[in-house]
């Protein structure tokens, strides 16, 4: 396979062409909105294609560490233990995107259950720990979109 230019570079080249040559020639307001939406989606896809596998792995490692500690400290948190067990049984560690996404879904459920357990415990340190994990997730999401402003409104 060819690896250069990267997918990100290819998508960005398409975006540049659409922005520089197609957009100025569109007079219909509805079509302009469609193009702006398409450019926004393509820009996000460019960032994701370059980084999402690494981001999912980094988030997974961080979630695992917190969740396993919570499971030890709060054996009464049955949903968390079950989610961790499902993650351990189902994860593939594969780098194929479909499989990596499936792993990420399993660990995301672990994070949700860890969040529920933290709030149920009322422990501010535990709530803070899950909030840090969510902030990590948000930092990655925000790197995809930048500031979101609704097109056409």
């Amino acid at each position, binding site marked *: 396979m060819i690896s250069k230019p990267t997918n990100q570079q290819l998508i960005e080249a398409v975006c540049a062409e659409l922005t520089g040559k197609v957009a100025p020639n569109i007079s219909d307001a509805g079509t302009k909105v469609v193009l702006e939406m398409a450019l926004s989606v393509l820009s996000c896809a460019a960032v994701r294609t370059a980084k999402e596998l690494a981001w999912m792995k980094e988030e997974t490692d961080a979630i695992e560490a917190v969740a396993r500690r919570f499971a030890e400290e709060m054996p009464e948190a049955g949903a968390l233990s079950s989610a961790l067990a499902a993650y351990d049984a189902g994860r593939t560690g594969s780098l194929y995107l479909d499989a990596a996404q499936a792993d990420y879904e399993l660990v995301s459920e672990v994070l*949700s259950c860890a969040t529920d357990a933290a709030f149920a415990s009322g422990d501010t340190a535990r709530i803070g720990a899950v909030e840090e994990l969510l902030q990590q997730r948000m930092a990655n999401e925000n790197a995809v979109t930048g500031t979101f402003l609704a097109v056409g409104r």
Partner: protein
Amino acid sequence: MTDTAEHISRLEAFFQRRSDDPDSLKVVDFEVITGGYSRAMSKVFVEDSSGRRGYIIRADPPPGQAIIDTDRATEWSVLSTLYASGQVPMPVPRWFDPTGEELGSPAIVIDLVDGEAMISLTRKVADEDHPEWGRRLAEVMATVHMTDMAVLPPELEVPGSWDEYIDARIQYWEDSERAHIDRDPIMRYVAAWLRANRPPPVPLGLVHGDLQIANVLIDRDDTCLVIDWELTHVGDPREDIGWSLLAGVTQPPDLIRCDEESFYARYRELTGFTEEQVNPAVMDFFLLLASPTVYVSVIEQLAALARGETTGIAVAYMSPAVIGMHDVFMRAIAHHKSITGGAA
């Protein structure tokens, strides 16, 4: 005949059937309105022997093209009932094609307002004028929220109690996440946070559901008219303020946060709500509580795209929108903590 020509022909026949002089009626101008993400909106001008008139058509878009599916019959009932009550200034709702037999898809026809949306108007004024506009927005919201519940149509279900309603709204966050095709820990975090930060109640009342400055028109008499009632329900009126706060981030200007105290003071004065019931921290709660109505519809549409059931660009575009909303949710919680000291 092109799709547009065919549509104009349908419109002409529709308006001819409602004209006193049908033979003289012509559609003289037609324009698709951009910016709406749910209904297919268009502006049409007709002319007959009695003169020229403008109308707005709110129609169901083709399947898979809308980010929110709502019911035109319920919307029509809300529009016609509220308009007849005279309690909320709004454009005149004229006609309803419930089946799409005449207009191609179920559609509502309302009078075109000779005026401008508050969003475009306030984008043209100086920043220092925004607080005054914010107080006008507070007046609009108070007018909607003080509507007598007795005039509401039977389609709007009244919850058993405030607690029952709030519990159901929070549970909706959690249940929707569990039903979604993708895991979304931020939704579960929001649900857990809402359960831990319940504010003092207010009486249940009319909630517009999408009361933001894009949906307030200022006519030539300087009257504020409220449009887009498709998400109207009975609930906690503060939801509208919360939703408007979210809209203010993605569709500036933010006429509330430009001078929060002035906005809330005016709103409290008109509604009689207390400072404990209406303040910036409480509104962070309602930003989150109000959001799933649109947010869940959006992720359901994205799920349809993931299953290959739609390819609509407006739907694909909701992927970055979801990220934008996540960011607003997290900021609202951080804002609440900065005011309350982080009590969970």
